[in-house]
């Protein structure tokens, strides 16, 4: 059943006439043409599709539109503010926290939620919070390093 659904993506409000049980991932990638968020498993098992919903990391493949109604969604495309890379984006690039890059948007969004929550997480906290995000290229050690570096950068600007 279609109805008008309102929500915000990267600061832009959207009103879509569609059915409320559609997965957010498909709507982002198809209806809104924002392809930065990736499909990896469709079952909430890999984290490739991670976005922020009101500042919390959520897996958009397993989230219906109804659950984001009236909420703020942030995707990888919305993370860089005014053309300036987010500290996480810069740190991932500098530290080499990516190879094929397919898991990268989900990794960065998941880390962004972590830093919102805990601006200076410990090494163990990083591992624990990133545990559910998979990377087949094996960039883990560098992702951890990048998050540590970004955390310092975020901390420094406070």
């Amino acid at each position, binding site marked *: 059943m279609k109805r008008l659904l309102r929500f915000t993506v990267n600061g832009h409000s959207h009103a879509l006439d569609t059915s409320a049980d559609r997965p957010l991932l*498909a709507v982002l990638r198809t209806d809104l043409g924002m392809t930065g968020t990736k499909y990896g498993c469709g079952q909430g098992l*890999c984290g490739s599709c991670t976005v922020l919903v009101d500042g919390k990391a959520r897996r958009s493949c397993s989230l219906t539109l109804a659950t984001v109604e009236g909420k703020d969604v942030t995707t990888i495309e919305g993370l860089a503010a005014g053309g300036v890379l987010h500290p996480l984006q810069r740190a991932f690039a500098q530290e080499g926290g990516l190879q094929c890059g397919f898991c990268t948007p989900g990794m960065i969004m998941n880390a962004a939620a972590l830093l919102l929550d805990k601006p200076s997480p410990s090494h163990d906290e990083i591992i624990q919070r990133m545990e559910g995000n998979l990377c087949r290229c094996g960039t883990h050690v560098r992702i951890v390093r990048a998050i540590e570096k970004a955390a310092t950068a975020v901390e420094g600007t406070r």
Partner: protein
Amino acid sequence: MSHEPDYLALTFSDIEVLPMLDRREFLKKVGSGIFVFVALGDLVLAQDPDGRRQQFRPQAPDDFNAFLRIAEDGGVTCFLGKTEMGQGVYTSMAQLLAEELDVQLDAIEMVMSDTGRCPWDLGTFGSMSIRYVGPTLRKAGAEARAVLLELGAKELGADASKLETVDGEVRVRDQPSRKVSYGALAKGEQIQRVVAGEVTLKEARDHKVIGRSEIARDAVAKVTGQAIYAGDIRRPGMLYARILRPPAHGARRTSLDTRAAAEMDGVRVIEDGDLVAVLHATPDGAAAALGRVRADFEVPESDLDDQNIFEALLADNARGRGLAKAGDLKVGEEAAAHFFDSTFLDGYVAHAPMETHTAVAEVGAESATIWASTQTPFMVRDAVARVLKMEAPKVRIIAPFVGGGFGGKGRSPQADEAARLAQLAGVPVHVEWTREEEFFYDTFRPAAVVKLRSGVDARGRMTAWEFDVYHAGTRGAGQFYDVPHHATTSYGSGWRGGGGPHPFGVGAWRAPANNTNTFARESQIEMMAAAVKTDPLEFRLRNLKDKRMIAVLTAAAERYGWTAQSPAGSRGRGIACGIDAGTYVAMIAEVDVDKNSGQVQVRRVVCAQDMGLVVNPRGARMQAEGCITMGLGYALSEDVRFNGGRIHERNFDTYILPRFSSVPEIEIDLVDTGVPEANGGGEPAIVTVGGAIGNAIYDAVGARLMQMPMTPARVLDALA
């Protein structure tokens, strides 16, 4: 505010020329510039020197394609059929060119993996890009530089011997004001050269860009979500497809009812022989429609499963192929004080790239374009052309960024599917395999058996070595220890072309066969070392003559801080060494084993690798780290379970990839023994992971694991 990405953002040159043009026509179409062409025959020879891959060779090997252009603005465009799938060739290949041409890395634009614009390429696998195509690319750069020097000599009125090239300019040496830019020299001209046999490349001591660590040039696109993968392509009128799949390999469809799906809003049903698909303007719409398709299948009965597959492999009576032989095994066996007769087993593993097989096809009456996640765009082009009944040059395959391949994205049948559906439906079609389809249609690394008989004398010298590998393949089976009496035989076709009793497709998996072979060899080595109560490092050095292997072993031991004393408690360390793609690797793993649960935690991995010439040390380290991390999976947790043609693994809940908490501290040493050419970098460091961990487990708790993955249950079994 739907944003419109530029789909050629990776390959965005003004040269939009299609491949059916010959050299003369090509030059008519493009503007001025200096062009270096390559004879396809040379590319074939470079990539398939022994002619093993005849069937994939280009149809017109006497043709020429543009390899690089220097335009009037001084920009350099390089056309290269390789795919960037995370291994970093987008960066390292540009480094090779920047070195020979004396331009900034930023001045080089890479147009890659587009059969419409790049010269023929065999595909991106086997760690061959830098090794086999790199030298040709460097020659093209050197050729272009020679042209520039000639033109510069004319322009500056100076003898070419007095000139130098710096940063995109030709200059008179010691007279900095007398100079001319490459762009100015290319202006209004159309100069063509062919990469010839004899071109002088720069000497290693003069390298400025080769050997310099560079950040991946695609990093910013990838951290901002702008990097385009096949599934991100959107075409006008495009529909998303979901395809009806059988529940098991070998299943036959006995009934089909698509009426309920066809009645749904906006759904189109396509039925063409074996291919049944539903199309919709959204992927979730297509998924819902597929849910309404009713079909019955007849699944053939089979007792074959992941437990008894090894007997089936041995019972297969596959033909053996001798790989190496010397001395007399009987004599070697008699000289042995200790003799070992072992059987090592290795299960099926999945490629599981984070990006599933994906393609978007746009098919017209005369020509077709398919964006596909593939490692082998030219092979896929030929396959799609057959499906569409078009001539190969009319089919253009573009592999944008690929989200991981590891050997699993060679054949790429999703491109055929998308092309067929697009042709039947008359609109562009998007096919993205679900994770479940990915696990089902993956060409797994084949299960394999290694039978190894070897002997050692009382002084710890190896006397005999008989290595028989079944169905893994030959890579890494080679013998580099110094044994007087040895024989190595490979049974079955391995992963090449499948065959054997596998109930589903098998194929190349990062360093094919070598993970299996190295696990067996290096486990056996430490079993022998233990029998003669000799330190495993010492034992290897005693039985080695190969200087490169000695160098990497010594380097790894030093970096690790190896002593005769093994760690206390249930902590252990193990060594493995091996050769892959010309590169020598020695690895030391340190593990903790929980004797109650059988759980193995790898704490630290030290890897020393001699890969010859290193183009981008940072990239090389990243590849080695990736290899080690990925290797944890085949060593400890990844196992495809099945029954007949039914695959039990469907998603990441049961198929366990390495995660953040499983990753050890990793240290990489790049060892330089003065080898002038580049060896492979994308695969070698994975081959030693299983062996090093297996040996470390033995060192920790005395349990010898004869089968991978070394799951907690198998560790407990070995302890019992």
